[in-house]
């Protein structure tokens, strides 16, 4: 057991990197739902463009963080092993198919875009998982946690979007949100249990409130709201919006904490102590 230099928060990735996970996940989750919910051609177009804009905002934020911005194209050089490169390639596909779907109004292309969006979310989970220097990120179940968080955020945003567009709460999205927030809470529970031993107390303390919110404000509250909205007709739209905001805000907070508050390294450890001198 050693008590050497204690683990410290990584300072290499700040809120700009966190925004890529926040906006990228939300945008892709939103695209996924918008592809499978019947919308008017105009609304489908707006939804796709909004989702792509969110992903673009995330990528722009992370571009602002890199040291050599004019060399950003080098990010495509290592598809063999780097999940960041793979995310970039998937992003190109996402924008190509998304813009084509928005321009043509093709439902099939929208579905293709949705599938590519799932790939984008998966890449984001694997980016974190490949970060061996950060115990809170390298835990394998982080991939599922990031995936379900993105879906919950996407569904939440879609409910808000539906209300603003004057649509009634789409049953498919309400069901999707219910599934996503429950799956997210379960994924958090599994992740939290598995990662616990590797976390330093400060990382645990940072996670605790954000994790609790994934259960309470992020799962129980949206479910209760949607149930209430289903029973009280006059409350349906307001309930959908509030449930969406709750699912969205808790996901965003969690990702912010994951990247900028709980990302402690493991410090240094000596499994053996030097034996000095003789008998």
């Amino acid at each position, binding site marked *: 057991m050693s*008590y050497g230099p204690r683990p410290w928060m990584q300072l290499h990735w700040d809120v700009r990197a966190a925004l890529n996970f926040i906006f990228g996940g939300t945008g892709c989750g939103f695209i996924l739902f918008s592809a499978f919910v019947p919308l008017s051609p105009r609304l489908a177009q707006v939804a796709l463009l909004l989702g792509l804009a969110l992903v673009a905002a995330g990528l722009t934020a992370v571009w602002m963080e890199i040291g050599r911005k004019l060399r*950003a194209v080098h990010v495509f050089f290592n598809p063999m092993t780097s999940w960041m490169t793979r995310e*970039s390639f998937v992003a190109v596909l996402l924008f190509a198919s998304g813009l084509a779907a928005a321009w043509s109004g093709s439902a099939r292309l929208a579905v293709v875009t949705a599938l590519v969006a799932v790939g984008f979310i998966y890449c984001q989970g694997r980016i974190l998982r490949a*970060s061996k220097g950060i115990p809170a990120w390298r835990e394998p179940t982080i991939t599922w946690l990031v995936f379900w968080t993105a879906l919950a955020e996407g569904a939440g945003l879609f409910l808000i979007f539906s209300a603003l567009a004057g649509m009634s709460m789409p049953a498919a999205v309400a069901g999707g949100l219910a599934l996503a927030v429950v799956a997210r809470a379960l994924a958090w529970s599994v992740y939290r249990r598995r990662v616990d031993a590797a976390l330093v107390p400060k990382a645990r303390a940072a996670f605790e409130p954000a994790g609790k919110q994934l259960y309470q404000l992020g799962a129980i509250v949206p479910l209760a709201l949607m149930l209430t909205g289903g029973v009280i007709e006059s409350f349906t739209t307001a309930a959908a919006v509030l449930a969406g905001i709750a699912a969205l805000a808790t996901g965003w907070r969690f990702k912010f904490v994951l990247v900028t508050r709980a990302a402690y390294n493991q410090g240094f450890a000596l499994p053996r102590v030097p034996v000095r001198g003789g008998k």
Partner: protein
Amino acid sequence: MTRWVMIADLRRCVGCQTCTAACKHANATPPEVQWRRVLDMEVGQYPEVKRVFVPVGCMHCADPPCMHVCPSTATRQRADGIVTIDYDLCIGCSYCAVACPYQARYKTDTASFAYGDAPMENEAAMFDPKRLAVATKCTFCSDRVDAGLARGFKPGVDPEATPACVNSCIASALHFGDKEDPRSNVSKLLDENEHFRMHEELGTDPGFYYLWDKTVKEGYERGGEGK
């Protein structure tokens, strides 16, 4: 095949930081950047507490996570095991820095010098704008190793082909050599001493070994003479 590795004898290191200073001088790293660091660690439980000085830096892992995550292929591995960074390719995304389990990577966005705005002579001579806003780390003094080899010197034995930190060590705590050569200095040290590598459980196969005791051979007792 050759695999260059470094060894730190924890029984010998006195924490003088001469290796840190030598590295900074040889590589002209800016303030707060220490490619070779020496940690001052307190280990054990009271009353069995010890103070241990632990040299750390890039471990030149055989399976380096920094290389796998690098999106630009700036981080590569030479055939002799040394992990390198191509400053012309690196985009400064710091993904390697969060992937490294040893906190061995640095990124400095602006030029800074030890004493104010003006560089010292060695800093001016070694200043390289290519190292700004990109990832940097210990190179095992690969330029020195290569130049020494080209002149017929033996790394780890001849100072002309040996990393600056090893050359400077006042206690002979640091060693450098070819682990694949069974007759090399490092192979002998690893054979004669108990050793470990840091965070070995992560499976990166680091090329930096720590000696902590003599190997107990059959018929011998730890710390004593042979029977």
